[in-house]
């Protein structure tokens, strides 16, 4: 792909995770050199992008040296020595974790988040912590207490959100891959807007332990990567049962990397469902054109197009902003300034709560806490939260009915390309509609991936591929075939 914000050819930072691992295996690259290359790019470009909230350069160099030693000792692994970064929602022992909020000012967690722990065990090298919307509440990264990350394709535009820093960092080659979280599209939407691959796994596939909770029944961690194969490698490293997360699934993890490696270029026999509701009013015509072209590419590869309907998806945004805010109102109740984080002292307990939370939380977070508190209040509980949970079941039933008739569902990830910073901050509803195509999948709990499908007006467009529960291998396979037949950037680079 041309015109992108990437590292120049020859810079090891331009390599995919798999490409870098191969070079390290071949002995033409060390983790130390690769880590230095990323740190140099961070130093040069992050001041403009604001993708990183914390850069752990010294730790990264030490971890890289350790990875090189492990490799010299004969160890190998797909992520050994590969530098990555974490959305600042994952706890990191000894490294501040802000969740993009002033509320967690000065908070240094005692424990590592489980997905992070697994990546470290695989030998991946942590470069730092990435910018995000405050407590993952936002679709533009503009609710971050530390200022928005910027879109590498156009610094005047948003990288999307809430994993905006993660998408920007991957797109600008400031890390080989990143870990984000997706509650209503927070991995897929910024991936689409920044032209990278973003995968939200099935709810329960990846442990949520150590993820600062936004909406517990929706939150799921997943990779943002330079290509589909990298996304599969990362998923393989982080997926699997965690007895310390009661909602994590105790079921075997398939070999996603192998599914991608075996993908080939043929989708013969595969049925792709195209939901009418995802191509309705509100979809930018240029985005529509790019996605339609991508669907035709999939058909050209042998897939059969099936017209489907997800009739309750029109209620998804409304349901989401009741369910997610209700859960968030409880999840964020712990930030009271008594045990950790920001505290505004006052002799009166209630004044202390009010001042701590009033000063610690940003506007969007407050809006959602109020909304969620209201949705659960006596007298409104059933009309709002109760009804939302009932419609949520219908949304999932829509997916089940559709996925009985097709193997994957495809459509746009976002209705528009990256929007200008400030464009939607005054209009929360317009901001919420940024996630209109991603939210329903979180409510169902099913996996989805965004893969770049060309440009519209010089900005990336994402093709969303949604699958059955635990259907990540199929989703990844379709994405990989698409990536190959479309001859996109990742194929050029690998």
């Amino acid at each position: 792909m041309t015109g992108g914000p990437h590292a120049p050819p020859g810079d090891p930072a331009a390599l995919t995770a798999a490409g870098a691992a191969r070079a390290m295996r071949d002995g033409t690259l060390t983790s130390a050199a690769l880590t230095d290359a990323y740190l140099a790019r961070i130093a040069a470009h992050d001041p403009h992008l604001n993708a990183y909230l914390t850069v752990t350069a010294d730790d990264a160099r030490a971890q890289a040296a350790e990875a090189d030693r492990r490799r010299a000792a004969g160890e190998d692994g797909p992520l050994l020595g590969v530098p990555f970064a974490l959305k600042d929602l994952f706890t990191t022992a000894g490294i501040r974790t802000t969740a993009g909020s002033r509320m967690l000012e000065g908070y240094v967690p005692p424990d590592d988040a489980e997905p992070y722990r697994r990546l470290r065990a695989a030998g991946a090298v942590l470069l730092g912590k990435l910018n995000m919307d405050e407590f993952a509440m936002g679709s533009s990264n503009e609710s971050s207490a530390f200022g928005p990350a910027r879109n590498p394709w156009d610094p005047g535009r948003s990288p999307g959100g809430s994993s905006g820093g993660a998408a920007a960092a991957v797109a600008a080659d400031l890390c080989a891959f990143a870990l984000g979280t997706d509650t209503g599209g927070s991995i897929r939407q910024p991936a689409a807007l920044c032209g990278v691959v973003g995968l939200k796994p099935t709810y329960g596939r990846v442990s949520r332990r150590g993820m600062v909770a936004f909406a517990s029944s929706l939150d799921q961690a997943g990779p943002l990567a330079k290509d589909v194969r990298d996304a599969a490698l990362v998923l393989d490293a982080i997926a699997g049962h965690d007895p310390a997360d009661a909602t994590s699934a105790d079921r075997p993890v398939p070999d996603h990397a192998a599914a991608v490696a075996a993908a080939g270029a043929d989708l013969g026999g595969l049925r792709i469902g195209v939901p009418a509701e995802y191509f309705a009013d509100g979809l930018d015509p240029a985005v529509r054109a790019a996605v339609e072209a991508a669907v035709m590419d999939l058909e050209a590869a042998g897939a059969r197009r099936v017209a489907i309907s997800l009739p309750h998806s029109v209620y998804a945004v409304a349901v989401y902003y009741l369910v997610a805010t209700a859960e968030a109102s409880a999840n964020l109740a712990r930030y009271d300034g008594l045990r950790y984080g920001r505290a505004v002292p006052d002799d009166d307990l209630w004044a202390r709560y009010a001042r701590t939370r009033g000063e610690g939380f940003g506007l969007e977070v407050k809006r959602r806490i109020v909304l969620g508190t209201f949705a659960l209040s006596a007298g409104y509980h059933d009309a709002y939260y109760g009804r939302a949970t009932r419609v949520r079941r219908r949304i999932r039933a829509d997916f089940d009915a559709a996925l009985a008739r097709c193997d994957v569902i495809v459509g746009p990830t976002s209705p528009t390309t990256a929007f200008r910073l400030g464009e939607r901050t005054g209009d929360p509803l317009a901001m919420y509609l940024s996630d209109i195509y991603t939210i329903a999948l979180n409510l169902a709990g099913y996996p989805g991936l965004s893969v770049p499908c060309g440009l519209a007006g010089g900005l990336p467009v994402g093709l969303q591929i949604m699958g059955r529960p635990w259907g990540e291998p199929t989703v990844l396979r379709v994405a990989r075939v698409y990536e190959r037949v479309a001859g996109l950037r990742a194929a050029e680079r690998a």
Partner: protein
Amino acid sequence: MQAAHPPSDLDAFELVVGLETHVQLVTASKMFCACAADADLAAPNTRTCPVCLGLPGALPVPNAHAVALAVRAALALGCTVHAHTRFERKSYHYPDLPKGYQISQYTRPLGTGGGLDVDVEGRAGHVRLERLHIEEDTARLVHAAGETRVDFNRAGIPLVEIVTRPDLRSPDAAAAYVETLRHLLRWIGVSTAAMASGALRVDVNCSLRRFGDPALGTKVEIKNLNSIAAVRAALAYERRRQAACLARGEAVAHETRGWDEAAGRTTPQRGKEHAHDYRYFPEPDLPPLVLPEAWLTEQRAALPELPAARRGRLVAAHGLRPEDARLLTRDRATADYFEAVLATDGATRADPEATPPGPGAGPAPAPATSVAAWITGPLFAALYARGLDVAAVRNHLPPAHLAALVALVASGVVTANVGKRVLGEMIDTGSRARDIVDRDGLAQVDDAADLRRIAEGVVAANPKAVADYRAGKTASLGFLIGGVMKATHAQANPDAARRAVVEALERSAGG
């Protein structure tokens, strides 16, 4: 000023009481984390982790053993146990609540219905239960020197909350309910139910209405009563206070009150007043709690015979009096001990080595009533004096040892008084009764020839007493018998001693 209400006020109104009891389950670890559940033994804030401190990213994992204990409690109380249940979040802000919500159960409690038979002043009664649910305890606030500190050791300790219907009608009935509940929970081993340590805490809901009025009056809640005496006293106080209120034509305020032990009165409570909307919703960090039928069956099987059934059986099978059955079932260890004593060989025969005390008379069997009397009498007294209970001495005093002692007394080898003394040493040293008796020569002196010789000696040595006796002062007979007892170190059979003295007197008169 509220103390002096005319009794007529009380007579006009009926007290209606419902109780909510929080019971700490006996588990090694907390409800949702691996922290030790020994809050009281540990220095403040040494039993904490990210989960029970509510740190960002921490997730709860249910303690299966706590769920099992809660299920056993529900089964023992006759609740319907729901195989499909779930945890919910109860939201309010307070420093004792690290997450800003408490994980509890609301719309689908573990158990519903059920009840407890409670005797009040000798009359059998029944208290229906509304529900039983699992929840986590809050932290403890420690107020000292103008400061409030928070100890999170207790945060997350597993509790069950047991809620009654408004079936109780007097302070005594409420106290009897708490006592019966506490006894049952200890009996089935789900809780220490120790009120002093907070393992059992009672909230009381009470209201007054005119006798015959079907509608309930305005409810007043009294929180956190930590003794049965406090339950009784707080309710008695509230009954007087509310009756005075109503007699004056005033309305009783719907409010939460606290019990001021020192002042002996309830006072309006402030603090959590603006937090009445708890905004319950299903805990999204935990999947629904589904209890497989086979597992429920295991929990049912793990329950011991319940106290009421045990008492009934002791009465029916062993012919005990109901009051003795009640004493013997004061705890499960005692009841088990009693039946173990009956089950030993020694309960029906004296020590195998023991020589039969009299010609032709085999050792007398020790019937259940006499074992019961030994346990509820001398043994309880000895334990009480030593600050011990049956469970604690079972190793030193195995059932067979007590059985042998009871048989020695029953067959006349030693007197009851000697038996009591021997029992004390058996508890203290673990010795067998026979060994102590033999070592100290404590066997009853009832050899007729010996006694005859001793009695003759006493009669010969006390001519004045003999003369008095002959002069009609029958009291001197007691003096002479006392002399025989003294000479035998109290090991003489009192009847035999009496007989020997009378015969010696007759002989000396005739000679």
